[in-house]
């Protein structure tokens, strides 16, 4: 009781702010969606028919099974790869560490479709790698399509999430705990399994949730290489927005199911994190060690191969962008033609992309840290609800969210449609979870007694937050913020609904080319996007003076 009063003013204001933001930009738009999921398309009467229909047809419910299966596999694989990479990169000296980290981040930057399409070029039935292997072994080689392809593409795209989260947390682990384990005779994998992993668990779970949600929501990849391996997002998308004209109520019902499903998973994750989290006041971070000989070589090889493989789509895209084209067809030889074609409007798209993403990331970091604080340190039913709500936009297909936003804000009293503001709002709402998750993960690790120390010195909770807590959080937040930012840049599905001529972004421009198979120009745009992003990242690290990305 005392505690609540202690901080009534500021944190209540934050809670109120969160309620307003989510209420206005999330609940209000989504409410009609949820209601329509219970409505009969013809009469508008309340019915459960939309849900019943889903479970009657294998075509539909099979996609749910497929989604869950592939998502689970992707999540597990990403955890393994991401955690291992983070551990080796943090604990041992790795040559060209900076470059490796940049590459890892860049491999997330794969605008919808184009990344997956690169894999078709490489691993499709007449893909370069497939052909090569077929000729080498004189037997039919499996192609990229279907389950295993989706698994590969998504894992390579999503393990960086885990990597960023975990390496942030690893740097916060108190080295003496690891030493304690060693002094008790523990080493290697055992040490990782019994001490490091449990300590990282809250963070890994936070990252895993992100991966899970992302994999579950991704529709670009299965759309392109699913080949009959139907998944929920594609289904929702096509029922909602197909050229053929689907059934909005039914799509809403599927979206509702997804929301319920993911909320359950989120609550489960939260429950475990709450039970399995502990504070560490880490004064001595882990020392970076030099591995020697054989082990060192193996580690480097592993890291480089992994990074190379995850960069393949980017390389392919860049390569493709310089190919000579004739319309939609790639011809032998190189040319800059694709760049010439996209040159019009390019400046606008680039400015828009970066203006929106920076504006959004600023709001995201601020909101993310504040909301993370109230949901971890000022727990009550309201903050619990806010925490859960914040995950919704993550799972609702972007295009659906875009449409609900458009419907909600295209009329008096609040006309936002057609403005940059609505795009930024959708970016903030959709990309907040990354920063929010990483912020609360890091908060779990900061000992409250440090905050108390500051308060005892006369700093109000508000001051303490900005001068102490926030500063200590920053390294951890940064990893989430980078994710938020990169995904803001990549964001397509809601922007494509919300943009107008003056607010087009790079990824919209890329998508526009992709949908009608103009891959040369798409690749050119994509390359420009990658290059400018790398430049922005490098600039950021230069200015912020930090050597590591995940810090």
């Amino acid at each position, binding site marked *: *009781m*005392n*505690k609540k*009063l*202690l*901080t009534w003013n500021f944190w209540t204001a934050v809670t109120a702010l969160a309620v307003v933001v989510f209420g206005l930009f999330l609940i209000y738009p989504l409410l009609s969606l949820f209601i329509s999921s219970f409505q009969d398309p013809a009469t508008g009467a309340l019915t459960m028919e939309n849900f019943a229909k889903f479970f009657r047809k294998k075509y539909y419910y099979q996609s749910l099974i497929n989604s869950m299966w592939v998502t689970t596999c992707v999540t597990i694989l990403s955890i393994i790869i991401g955690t291992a990479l983070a551990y080796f990169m943090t604990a041992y000296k790795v040559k060209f560490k900076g470059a490796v980290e940049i590459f890892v981040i860049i491999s997330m930057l794969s605008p919808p479709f184009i990344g997956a399409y690169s894999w078709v070029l490489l691993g499709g039935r007449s893909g370069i790698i497939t052909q090569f292997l077929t000729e080498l072994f004189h037997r039919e080689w499996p192609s990229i399509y279907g389950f295993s392809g989706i698994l590969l593409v998504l894992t390579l795209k999503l393990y960086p999430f885990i990597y960023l989260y975990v390496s942030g947390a690893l740097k916060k682990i108190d080295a003496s705990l690891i030493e304690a384990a060693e002094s008790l005779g523990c080493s290697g994998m055992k040490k990782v399994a019994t001490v490091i992993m449990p300590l990282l668990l809250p963070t890994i779970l936070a990252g895993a949730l992100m991966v899970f949600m992302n994999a579950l929501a991704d529709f670009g990849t299965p759309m392109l290489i699913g080949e009959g391996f139907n998944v929920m997002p594609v289904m929702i998308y096509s029922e909602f927005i197909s050229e053929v004209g689907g059934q909005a109520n039914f799509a809403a019902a599927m979206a509702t199911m997804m929301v319920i499903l993911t909320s359950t998973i989120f609550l489960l994750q939260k429950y475990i994190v709450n039970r399995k989290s502990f504070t560490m*006041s*880490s*004064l*001595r*971070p882990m020392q970076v060690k030099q591995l020697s000989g054989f082990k060192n070589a193996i580690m480097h090889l592993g890291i480089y191969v992994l990074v190379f493989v995850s960069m393949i789509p980017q390389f392919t895209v860049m390569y493709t962008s310089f190919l000579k084209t004739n319309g939609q067809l790639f011809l032998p030889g190189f040319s800059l033609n694709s760049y010439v074609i996209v040159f019009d409007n390019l400046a606008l798209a680039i400015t828009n992309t970066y203006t929106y993403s920076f504006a959004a990331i600023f709001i995201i970091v601020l909101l993310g840290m504040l909301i993370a604080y109230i949901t971890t340190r000022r727990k009550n039913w309201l903050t619990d609800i806010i925490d859960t709500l914040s995950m919704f936009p993550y799972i609702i297909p972007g295009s659906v969210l875009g449409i609900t936003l458009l419907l909600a804000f295209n009329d008096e009293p609040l006309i936002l449609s057609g403005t940059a503001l609505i795009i930024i709002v959708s970016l903030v709402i959709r990309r907040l979870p990354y920063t929010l998750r990483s912020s609360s993960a890091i908060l779990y690790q900061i*000992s409250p*007694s*440090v905050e*108390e*120390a*500051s*308060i*005892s*010195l*006369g*700093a*109000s*909770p508000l*001051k*303490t937050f900005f*001068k*102490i807590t926030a*500063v*200590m959080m920053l390294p951890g937040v940064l990893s989430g913020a980078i994710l938020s930012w990169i995904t803001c840049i990549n964001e397509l599905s809601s922007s494509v609904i919300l943009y107008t001529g003056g607010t087009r972004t790079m990824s919209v421009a890329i998508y526009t080319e992709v949908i009608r198979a103009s891959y040369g120009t798409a690749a050119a745009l994509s390359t420009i996007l990658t290059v400018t992003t790398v430049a922005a990242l490098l600039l950021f690290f230069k200015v912020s003076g930090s050597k590591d990305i995940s810090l």
Partner: protein
Amino acid sequence: MSVAIHIDHVVKRYEQVTIIPDLSAHIKNGEFFTLLGPSGCGKTTLLRMIAGFNSIEGGQIKFDERLINDIPAHKRNIGMVFQNYAIFPHLTVRENVEYGLKLRGLDKAAIKKKVDDILKVVKIEDYQDRLPERLSGGQQQRVALARAIVIHPNVLLMDEPLSNLDAKLRIEMRSAIREVQNQVGITTVYVTHDQEEALAISDRIAVMHAGVIQQIGNPQSIYTRPYNVFVSTFIGHSNLFAGKIKVDALKTFVVFNDGYQIELEHLGEVTDGQEVIISVRPEEFSVQEDGLQCTISSRVFLGKYVNYKLAFAPNMLVANQVSIEFSQDLGHAERIFEQGDMITLRPNKAKINIFTADAEAKNLIKGVKQYE
């Protein structure tokens, strides 16, 4: 501008478990008040309640006349040294110490001066630009100390602030604390497990046990006239003998089980034949012709004195004592004994304490007060 602290019937519960059932204490303005008690008895908990970091489940705490139960911690103008230091890991030593001063809006020159001074006092001026991760444990602790003292708070709360320092440094830090405390008159509540420290530094000491205050008093009375057996054995060593009261027409005696008896004039109300516990401190024995017979079972050298463990006939003693000890001052020892030697020890009758043999085990000496 220090304040008096009035703690009235406070209660602390963690979920189901009651840690402090009902505790009252009044700490005077400018006083150096020490909480002493076994590990886990609730010292930190009480301190955090005064600081405002633990909720108060019942009762009230006042600073002078001001009820502070609901005043947020940062408005209480306290300084606190945490048991786990809680230094800001992202700030250098100097920045850590400056932190509180900056918040108070002092001008740069004043801050610099104050910080320089205090860094010198706690002897860490050489490390002022380091980050805490590169300090030794004791150095970290001194940063925490400096940070709390430098702001000259009304109330200074310290949770084992010297536990990682060597004796010399402890003594120096102690006088530094006392000095600052006297200069600006800070009411200080100090938690320590070190009795010598508590005795040396405190105006008054509260001895706690399982969330309950056993005795409050100045160091001397706590040590020489403990209110009950718990205090007697917790502060310093006490050898407990079983005995009986013998009251004849004129005099009152306390009789050991081997028949050795001592006349006591300053006992409170006792009845003839009443069972009692006789408490004798190791240094209150002297080797004499008459007294209690015992054998030396081991010997430890402790610098200023030698500590012997003694073996008595079992019926002489109260059960379950870890050891019975005699501490021989080396300044005066005529002879140092060997293991196995039989000696006769006479308790100093002016100093021994007599406790009731019941569960309360209260001191029977006249004039012993629980709260002073």
